[in-house]
């Protein structure tokens, strides 16, 4: 008979020797740094241009996001349809995204087509026209989208909690209105595009099974462009107008069946000495399926489909957030349980078994996360954009392995005081 009650013996994940495959770095003729991870077995690759052209560079709301959106909506050679058709014909995916500090133009493709695609990426970065007609359509359709989003309590809650944390004028806290769309004009988009894309500060990340001589290819298309390489983000002070600990109850939909709960407080960025330890404490609180919040509020009480806590992934200033959608009639009970769990972490050290559990789990997740070239480059990109190096990776492994329950309790006492959290429910 197979012994089924006892767990099979395991290799302790804390004994894993985790390594982060280093990137290769080279510099294009114009000084643009290229970080690459050559790995993988499939004939696929990713090329991502990161521009320092995110929200924090705009002088007027939405200019950065709109410039990013309209990048591939027309050049003097090709209109939006033709640009899309070109990338789609080769089965590739060209996407753009705008964040707070940076904005990206990312290509995923089969290796065999790369030669057809890079020249048109270059074209987009030199000669995007952002036609008036495209802008008009964008305004109309984005306003319609916004109207739908505003009906969702989770969307409204997400906007509000960020504005409490950072203030409505901070890049991390400001949000969009219909009027902001109306106020956009093409001239300021073109100006922004020229300054922050065509002549912008750019770095490149690439990964996959890269063909030999790929450096030359990249240099050929992107090395002669007037890009710059000053990667210093402006630092903008947060200007929250609400007091820590303030509580908000908002009704967005009188017939809503659930409340979107957000409980949050400011937290320092990744360079702070407490950050790595806080990641471990956060996992225990609400960072994985076995967390205290999930175990208590979902698996014991059934108040919600899911509850999580996390540290926001911001460059300058972060926040510690608890987030869930709970039944309308159990929102207050849910909030009470969240605070109960915070206080418990302050008053009682985490037991040995739970410490071991969360540490092992985190090690396993990192191991799985390092699997494949796209995952590895994504981790590197996150480090580089946060001005961190490989030491951060090895420090975080060391922290997971060595942090003690006493240290976590001290951390909970320092950071998890319920009355320091903004508390919000949107129904």
């Amino acid at each position, binding site marked *: 008979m197979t012994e089924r009650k006892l767990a099979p013996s395991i290799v302790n994940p804390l004994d894993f020797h985790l390594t982060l495959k280093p990137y290769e770095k080279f510099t294009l003729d114009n000084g643009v740094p290229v970080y690459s991870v050559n790995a993988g077995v499939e004939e696929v690759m990713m090329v991502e241009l990161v521009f320092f052209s995110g929200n924090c560079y705009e002088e007027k709301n939405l200019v950065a996001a709109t410039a990013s959106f309209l990048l591939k909506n027309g050049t003097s050679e090709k209109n939006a349809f033709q640009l899309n058709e070109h990338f789609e014909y080769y089965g590739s995916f060209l996407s753009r995204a705008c964040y707070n500090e940076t904005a990206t133009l990312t290509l995923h493709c089969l290796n065999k087509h790369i030669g057809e695609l890079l020249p048109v990426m270059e074209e987009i970065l030199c000669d995007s026209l952002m036609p008036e007609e495209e802008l008009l359509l964008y305004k109309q359709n984005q306003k319609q989208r916004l109207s739908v989003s505003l009906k969702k309590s989770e969307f409204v809650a997400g906007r509000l909690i960020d504005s409490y944390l950072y203030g409505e004028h901070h890049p991390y806290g400001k949000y969009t209105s219909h009027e902001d769309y109306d106020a956009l004009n093409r001239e300021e988009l073109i100006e922004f595009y020229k300054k922050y894309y065509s002549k912008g500060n750019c770095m490149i990340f690439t990964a996959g099974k890269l063909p030999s001589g790929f450096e030359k290819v990249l240099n050929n298309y992107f090395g002669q462009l007037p890009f710059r390489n000053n990667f210093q983000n402006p630092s903008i002070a947060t200007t929250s107008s609400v007091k820590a600990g303030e509580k908000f109850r908002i009704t967005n939909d009188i017939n809503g069946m659930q409340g979107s709960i957000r409980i949050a407080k400011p937290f320092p960025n990744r360079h702070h000495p407490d950050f790595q330890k806080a990641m471990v404490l956060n996992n225990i609180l609400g960072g994985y399926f076995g967390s205290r919040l999930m175990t208590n509020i979902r698996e014991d009480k059934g108040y919600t489909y899911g509850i999580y806590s996390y540290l926001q992934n911001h460059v300058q200033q972060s926040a510690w957030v608890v987030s869930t959608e709970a*039944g309308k009639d159990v929102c207050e009970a849910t909030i009470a349980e969240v605070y109960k769990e915070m206080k418990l972490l302050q008053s009682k050290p985490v037991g040995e078994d739970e410490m071991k559990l969360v540490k092992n789990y985190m090690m396993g997740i990192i191991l799985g996360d390092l699997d494949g070239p796209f995952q590895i480059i994504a981790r590197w990109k996150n480090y580089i954009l946060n001005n961190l190096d490989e030491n951060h990776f090895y420090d975080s492994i060391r922290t997971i392995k060595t942090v003690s329950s006493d240290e976590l309790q001290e951390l909970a006492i320092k950071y998890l005081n319920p009355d320091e959290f903004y508390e919000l429910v949107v129904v």
Partner: protein
Amino acid sequence: MIQFEKFSLKNGLKVIVHRDTSTPMAVLNVMYDVGARDEDPTRTGFAHLFEHLMFGGSINIPNYDGPLQMAGGENNAYTTNDITNYYIQLPAENLETAFWLESDRMLSLAFGEKSLDTQRKVVSEEFKEHYLNKPYGDVWHKMRELAYKVHPYRWMTIGKELSHIENAKLEDVKLFFFKHYRPVNAILVVAGNVTTQKVKELSEKWFGDISSGEKYIRNLPIEPVQTEVRKIEVKADVPLDAFYKCWHIYNRLDHRYYIAALITEVLSGGGSSRLFQSMVKEKKLFSAIDCYHSGSLDAGTLVIEGKLVKGVKMEDAEKAVEEEIEKMRTEKISGKELQKVKNKVESSIAFEDMSLMNRAASLAYYELLGDAAWMNDELEKYNLITPEEIQQECKVIFRPENSNILYYYSKN
């Protein structure tokens, strides 16, 4: 080309091994041949509720997640109208932990009242979060009921109504388990840094002595051919009017399934697709429009849905969509346009197969369809499709009497 080996245990459990030594991880994937289509019409949502109960402790192991996390692993599951799939990813060295956990819950659940009680609530909240507390959240509830009159695709995986979930009894749970969750109705895939020899040993050890169970013979009502257009109107508290239309297509094994899939790509596979270009960019009737198909095992539907630009009349929007469809019926698409959608299929497959977890789930899925090896023939099936076939199928699929229409009006 995805390599694999296949064998069966005496109790009928099929096992597939896919070796990839480039990763330190292993994936253990168990797919059960049961989904929402197998439910009693008065107890819908049960297959999915049951998936939740699979995490509530098994006969010898009170806590499923804890030991897995201790071994550095993570897991999840999903239910569709067709199948239920459970997967674990963990460091390859600790593969046996996955075997231990997964086999014990196939042996028997603990069937605790507390777990049922909690998960009923959790699933009710999931129902609210995804379908009730969302603008347009009830669309598929209505569309399924419109398009299907007898086939169980007429309800959603989450269930027809909250009360079905709230009324679930422990007795139902037990019956469901011993009917569907038996080795003979399951496919086990182990992928990653593993050897077939080791997987054989572990499969025998952990799954070998579980009683085989009875093969579930599916005997679902066949949806009669639709003979006239069906149309409903809804008024709801949403900001924009929306248009939904769907047509019956083919089951997963029918070669015309692939043709229908390519038709959806031609119509809305990206920024250069026909519907986006004509409806959103040129005529400015829709602010967003999509075309996709349900991807189901039994005959599913091909769908066009879009949000209308404010001020546009529903009838005008519909007429413009019809004109675009008419082009598909009367004109052959160019070789270049066809090649474009085939190229997209090719790269989508390549990117999907990068993930070990996807490869494991796909192998299980194709084995459930009939043979895991079919996974490697997919691209070829798409590549053989001709412009003539696309046109011919458009004539058949887009018959008005094959269509179901929902006008979703904004009350405001």
